[in-house]
């Protein structure tokens, strides 16, 4: 991806002025704090343009960078995108390789963009499934931008929700085990054993909801206000299932590479229309989560 393309298509002066005018109008109303996007339709776009799938993915990457700048200028605080699912490893090897190449090429591009638009870049997912040629530069970029707080850009790669939940549960179990060991000074299962050899868990030994949420890959961001899926599909495809209890699920018929400022403006205006309703829902969800008393513990096992 050439620097010149980015400059001319995204960061050019008159386009920037035009965007600022549109966003000034939108900012009269509430602006979503966190937008999540499932970037669907790259392959269908390539088919309509009669080009190979790789070109479709490249067009999708350009659209992503444009949307990144738009969200940054609009005043959105978090942008999360579903770049590559664990299930996508089932695709043809050349397709997987193309996407991996694009992820790898986008890291130096993002490094340059961070200088112009200070942001924190975060890669969420099971990064151990990625090659070292992507994982190591990604980790370096995350480390170098960790202190930026104005805007957080999260790229979900080698991610899916069920894997995220399992990972969080596993980490919670390890942490709780270590904690018990620290306190009792002996092996955790021995530490919890009663006189008859069965394992008893007191309230302090239970894994709680906040323990799990702390270990989520998406733990650095609040729940999304809006989740957009392009290409006219109506499912979440294992993306942010845990985090979208009170999110506006928005479906756009536009294929991702064609998603632009007007589609974003429409989504934000729609969010503003429903904002009072979602505010109430978020409060209700928090009340339910705080009001519920987690009293059940697994039965004692001998």
């Amino acid at each position, binding site marked *: 991806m050439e620097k010149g393309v980015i400059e001319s298509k995204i960061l050019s002066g008159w386009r920037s002025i035009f965007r600022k005018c549109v966003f*000034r*109008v*939108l900012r*009269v*109303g509430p602006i979503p704090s966190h937008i999540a996007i499932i970037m669907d339709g790259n392959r269908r776009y390539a088919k309509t343009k009669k080009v190979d799938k790789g070109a479709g993915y490249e067009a999708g990457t350009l659209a992503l960078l444009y949307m990144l700048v738009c969200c940054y200028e609009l005043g959105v605080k978090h942008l999360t995108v579903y770049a590559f*699912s*664990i*299930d*996508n490893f089932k*695709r043809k090897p050349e397709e997987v390789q193309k996407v991996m190449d694009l992820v790898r090429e986008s890291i130096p591009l993002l490094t340059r963009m961070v200088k112009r638009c200070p942001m924190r870049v975060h890669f969420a997912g099971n990064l151990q499934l990625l090659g070292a040629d992507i994982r190591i530069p990604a980790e370096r970029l995350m480390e170098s931008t960790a202190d930026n707080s104005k805007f957080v850009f999260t790229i979900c790669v080698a991610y*899916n*929700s*069920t894997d995220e*939940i*399992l990972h969080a*549960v596993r980490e*919670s*179990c*390890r942490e*709780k*085990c270590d904690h018990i060991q620290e306190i009792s000074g002996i*092996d*955790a*299962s021995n530490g919890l054993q009663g006189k008859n050899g069965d394992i008893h*868990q007191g309230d302090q030994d*239970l*894994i709680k*909801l906040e*323990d*799990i949420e702390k270990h989520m890959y998406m733990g650095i961001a609040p729940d999304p206000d809006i989740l957009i899926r392009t290409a006219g599909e*109506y*499912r*979440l*495809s*294992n993306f942010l*299932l*845990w985090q*979208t*209890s*009170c*999110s*506006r*699920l*928005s479906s756009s018929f536009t294929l991702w590479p064609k998603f632009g400022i007007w589609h974003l403006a429409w989504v934000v205006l*729609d969010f*503003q*229309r*429903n904002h009072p*309703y979602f505010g109430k*829902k978020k409060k*209700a*969800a928090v009340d*339910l*989560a705080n009001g*519920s008393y*987690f009293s*059940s*513990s*697994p039965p004692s*096992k001998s």
Partner: protein
Amino acid sequence: MDFKKETRILYCWIAQIGNLLLRSLWRLIHVIINLCYLTLGIAKAFESYLISWGILRRYKSLQVAKLRYLAIVVESKDACQTSKIIELLQWLADVGVKHVCLYDMEGILKKSKDFILEELDGAILFGEAYENNEIPDQAQMTLEFASFSDGKEAVAKAANVLFMKYLKSGATDQNQEEAIFTESQMAEALKTVGSGGPEPDLLLVYGPARCHLGFPAWRMRYTEIIHMGPLKSMKYGSLIKAIYKFTMVRQNYGK
């Protein structure tokens, strides 16, 4: 000094007029959007009546067998309208949908479960028929009732079930750890704590906006989520259209 003060006042006035114009433009845009949605709502209502009267032929033959498990999410304040819920379930029974999960955030539907089951002839609780992780093939309609507590809270409870297994395994061996923290083990743990259940193929949201309101995350990976509008204005034709659209969907499951 007077000139500077007057210039400041002038800029203040210009800014205020500018803000007023911006607000007016923003409100005008929202009025236009609301009119668009109103028009769309009227068109959808008209279409649903055409479907109900059998005028639109393509909706006459539904491949309902594709819809193995349906979930319905309703607002908790609407969940008290049990007559509407029962009417909806009767429509689904007429169409041939056998297995339904009813969800509302606060668990109001759970409290009305006995009444609903009584009103629907022959309907039974899903849990009684669900064995070996397979959706049973039977003539009776089965109903499942879920709420917010079957979502994140249930995962926390299931985590403790896995934690017990983790402790008993000695918590040292990597291979044993990998064998404990798997999707199938998690599904079993959720079943143990009373929040197991199949993944719905289709989830219909009856409310002001398209939002799943905390439906159990573990069971929604590839579920199609359709917004049906408020429960009080539910229409049979819209239900048929939603089921028809679902039967036309082709999923890649990530491939």
